[in-house]
């Protein structure tokens, strides 16, 4: 199994970062997996890529993080130019049970799906 997508994991929990990364690599054959500890770091990463951005980026976004949480990141993401937005798919990944978080995620136009941790690889594969 191999995928051409590039992945960006945004999660403050190092264990979860590791788990998601390993799942992507082993189960999905992902090669290019980047990591960010919160929304601010993620925005910085995207800006740093500039022309280097891949054709297809999949962001796995946690909800609760310090400094800039998942939803604040979504707001910041809006400010990026259309090209970046077009080739990016955002999937939220959280262990939240808060119905407000789930509703908000499902209603957000840039969010494809909210998955419960750990990442269900097969379902992700069907989506991207």
């Amino acid at each position, binding site marked *: 199994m191999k995928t051409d997508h590039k992945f960006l994991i945004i999660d403050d929990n190092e264990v979860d970062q590791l788990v998601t990364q390993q799942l992507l690599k082993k189960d999905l054959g992902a090669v290019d997996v980047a990591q960010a500890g919160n929304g601010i770091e993620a925005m910085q990463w995207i800006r740093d890529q500039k022309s280097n951005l891949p054709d297809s980026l999949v962001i796995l976004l946690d909800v609760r993080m310090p400094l800039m949480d998942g939803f604040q990141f979504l707001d910041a993401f809006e400010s990026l130019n259309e090209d970046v937005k077009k080739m990016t798919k955002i999937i939220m990944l959280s*262990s939240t049970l808060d119905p407000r978080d789930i509703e908000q995620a499902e209603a957000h136009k840039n969010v494809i799906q909210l998955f419960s941790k750990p990442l269900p690889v097969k379902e992700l594969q069907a989506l991207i």
Partner: protein
Amino acid sequence: MNPKISSFTPRNVLVLIGVIFFASAVLIVINYYTILITSGVRAYINGESQYSKGQKDASRNLLLYLDTRDTLYFNCFRKELRVNIGDSIARVGLSAGADDSVVRAGFTAGRNHPDDHNALIWLFKNFRNISFMKRAIQLWKEADYIILQEYRLAEEAHHKILRGQLTAADKAQYVVKITGFTTGLTIREREFTGVLGAAARTVNYWLFITNVIMTLLIIGSASGYALVMIQRLREKNADLSRTNTELDKFVYSASHDLRAPISSLSGLIEIAMVENDVNQIKSYLALMKTTLGKQDEFIREIIDFSRNKRTIIHRKEVNLDTLFDQVIARHQYMPGAHDIIIRKEITDPILWSDGLRLEIVMNNIISNAIKYHDRSKEEKYILIKSYRKNGMHVIEIADNGQGIRKEFHEKIFDMFFVTPNNQKGSGLGLYITRETVSRLKGSIRVESESRAGSNFIINIPAV
């Protein structure tokens, strides 16, 4: 809270209720006395009409007697005049303070209804010196004098008739006098009812005004009271819904924090299952252990939180020196703890407070100080100081750890607030610490600089 409404203290509400009671009492008293006065006035006006009728019938009979000289008319005259004489007896009795039975007998002869007697007596006794009643009594007295004159004239005429001495001139003179009496009485009778009627109208007018004022007062106070109560209910409801929202938030945050380690464990198990490298698997197991440890800590914190909220304060003598020794001993196996020098400078160790709660506070601060030590520093220390100042027991716990950025100083005590760091706290520890300190009626603040270290300063009442 709305400042306008908070001015309605329980005392102000009592004032409102007091006004309602006062106005109601005034209404009852005023109405009661007005009814007494008006029924008295009505009784006197009734009595006057009987008096006037009696006198006029008597005069008619007397004139007929003079014409016919038939004693039947003279007897009728006497009978009718008894009405006026009866009233006269009542008046003289009331003025002289005679027994009520005398007065009642007089009024009965005056053809006043027995049910009216009380009102007649009450009005006379209580208002005899009030202008309208004074005037009415004066008129009544004058009328009684005229009646007396008429009676005397009748007796004189009767004697003359009996003796056959009544001349035509006498008769003409008597007729003129009798007509004069009747006219004089009619004038007084009119004024009598006029004075009493005017008094009744004045009383009614003021009664109406008082009723309106008191009713407005009652309506105003009752509305004010109702508004205050409605506002209080609204505030209570707002408080309740705020509490519910906070509770919801707490439940979701807590459940998230309880669930997050399970998700992590589940993920670790998943990747461990497909891993063949034993060393890698071992590193996953170590991560599982750390994750479980964190969850365990979180559950302990939740218990601390609820214990602080629910259990009552139990003050007894606490020795800070031994308390700190216990707390330090408990944390000696934490990662990095063996590397940190912990010093105590306790000048006044004895404190009257809740030992269990103080322990929760010290545990949280000491474990933070160890958890967030600065590995880059050669000599790592924690300095515990305790002394008395201005009636307060001050406890300072300083370290040269990683420190806290200025922008987080206010927030670190908030529920579920976590600073970005590599330790991933629950966001409950310092919240519980502050809550616990405030239940001990103390305060806590932090002085800290990023990378330099932190100093937590706790003030607890010494007594």
